[in-house]
């Protein structure tokens, strides 16, 4: 029996890269298909919002005297006569350039989404933290009140609040922020309850940390993941709700370049100038879609159950 010696070839073993949980999450997030799409749309929108004054060909509020009302889009590259002035999305019923209004509207939409959700998170986190930490009657009263707020269809409660405060953009935003507080309060309370009695918190308390110190250094980091996901999805619904209120004439007053208001103002033009209705709707949809996709991506990326990175 002859033994043939096989030269031992050593394949390079795949190098084990150790990553922190954050790096893992970031990796999952950047490889997530919907997150990529969401990021792309959002990045585009942010750029448009920042450079609105540069990008917008006309003033979003002042009417263009020489333009005809509801004139259809005219783009030179697409065959519109070059001696005519170029209106990419057409002219609205008040002789304003729709493109410029859409561009400026992106600022407002992002501001609306971020400001309402920030407000709701701050109040919600405080209420939830107090509720979870103090417990007892305080907890009961706060959470039952939150339950009652959740018993209303949110948009309807927002409408009722606007009825009390009076129509207007700021009031609409307050109403929308107010109705979204309960979700954050519940999330925060759940996180507080989760870590409240754990050893590291007791240890921290024994070492003399104040309740606020414990909250900031131990509870908040644990609550951050669900809060971030909820906030991203919350921005999407806040933008939709704000558009709805403006559409009904209860939000931004004319001539604000707000997409919902633009839809509301032009709703009667749908049969003779459909582009005036179509385009603002697409703008709202894209923005909301971006935040929804981003929220889905974040949820998947931050879910600790998905440890393996493909």
């Amino acid at each position, binding site marked *: 029996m002859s033994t043939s010696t096989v030269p031992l070839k050593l394949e390079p073993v795949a190098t084990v890269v150790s990553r922190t949980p954050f790096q893992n999450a970031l990796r999952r997030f950047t490889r997530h298909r919907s997150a990529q799409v969401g990021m792309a749309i959002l990045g585009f929108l942010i750029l448009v919002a920042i450079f609105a004054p540069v990008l917008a060909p006309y003033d979003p509020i002042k009417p263009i005297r020489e333009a005809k009302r509801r004139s259809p889009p005219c783009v030179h590259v697409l065959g519109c006569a070059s001696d005519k002035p170029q209106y990419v999305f057409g002219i609205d019923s008040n002789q304003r350039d729709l493109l410029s209004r859409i561009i400026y509207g992106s600022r407002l939409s992002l501001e609306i989404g971020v400001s309402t959700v920030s407000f709701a998170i701050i109040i919600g986190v405080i209420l939830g933290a107090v509720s979870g930490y103090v417990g007892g009657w305080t907890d009961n009263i706060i959470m039952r*009140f939150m339950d*009652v707020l959740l018993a209303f269809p949110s948009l309807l409660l927002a409408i009722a609040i*606007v009825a009390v405060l009076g129509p207007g953009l700021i009031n609409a935003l307050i109403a929308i922020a107010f109705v979204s507080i309960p979700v954050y309060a519940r999330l925060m309370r759940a996180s507080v309850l989760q870590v409240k009695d754990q050893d590291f918190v007791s240890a921290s308390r024994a070492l003399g940390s104040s309740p606020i110190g414990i909250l900031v250094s131990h509870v908040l980091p644990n609550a951050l993941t669900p809060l971030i996901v909820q906030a991203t999805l919350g921005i999407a619904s806040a933008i939709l709700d704000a558009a709805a209120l403006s*559409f009904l004439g*209860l939000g931004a007053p004319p001539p604000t370049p707000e997409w919902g208001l633009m839809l509301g103002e032009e709703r009667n033009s749908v049969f003779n100038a459909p582009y005036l209705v179509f385009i603002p709707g697409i703008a*709202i949809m894209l923005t909301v879609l971006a935040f*929804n*996709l981003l929220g889905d991506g974040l949820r998947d990326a931050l879910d600790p159950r998905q440890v393996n990175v493909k």
Partner: protein
Amino acid sequence: MSQFFLRRFLLFLPVLFGITFVTFALARLLPGDPCLIALGERATEEQCNAFRERFGLNDPILVQFFRYVGDIAHGDFGESIRNKRPVMDIVLERLPMTIEVTIGAMIFSTFFGILLGLISALRRNTAVDVVTMMGANIGVSMPVFWLGLMLAYVFALALKDTPFWIPPSGRLSSGVTIPPLTETFHWKQMGGPLGMIVTFASNMVTFNALITGNFKVLRDALWHLVLPCIAVGTIPLSIIARMTRSSLLEVLGLDYVRTARAKGLRERVVVLKHAFRNAMLPIVTVVGLSVGGLLSGAVLTETVFALPGVGTQLVSAILARDYPVVQAFTVVIAIIFVLVNLAVDMSYSYLDPRIRLQ
């Protein structure tokens, strides 16, 4: 079993109380003197005193609240400031339309949502699945009223003179009317709760037409409901489709489904009888929760399709500061929403008997 239902019902009462409290508190927060709002700026001090006396505004706030709750329990929402009619009459006139749209949209979204979700789950990662889930993502991001306007444009204008034309506005075609039930059945005018129910049923055109066998009107009414229901139902449809897909995929991976397959059951039986029944719970929850969205959606789209429902009335009431009307609609819709979720809660025990035992 009955203990389970009773417990759930008792949990519902504090929520009901809370709803009335919040709307009551909102009304008290209304800026300005209610007397000046109701009677106008020129009201004299004497008129105002009489007004406050008449509506009990001089009583302690708690007394006012309990009187308000008692009045609601009797179906009395006060009087509309703007058109000096009992608010309950306006509710009975307007609410049926909104309920019709909501129910129609719910049927549409539940049926197609579950169907699309099922198909996606069974054809996972195929083109059908990808397209459906992309569509669902877009569906949840659309403003309801915009979709309504677009549907009106496509079906009423672009498809004009084709068999696919669908009316874009109104509840019935012009010239088509339906008499109230009291007239059809030669009943006497009724008061009290029974009278309210009869008025409500009469104003619910599809229901009225169905039980009186007036199929011409029924067809016309349903025809006018198609576009609003599609518009309102699209967001919940997307949510239900996503939930059905993920819930079914989770169940399909479980051991007992493998067992069912291993013992040679047909795929259809495995999916529909074994997997789907157990995937129902989260789907039913989502359907229940989407009722809130459906009701708000109906309120929004009514203004687009010129339907005589809560929406148009609510907006004009807000602009006219007619708060009793706003308050009544808010309370009624919140109660409907809570009741539907109570029903959903109770249906769990039917879908999953283990819940009953806890």
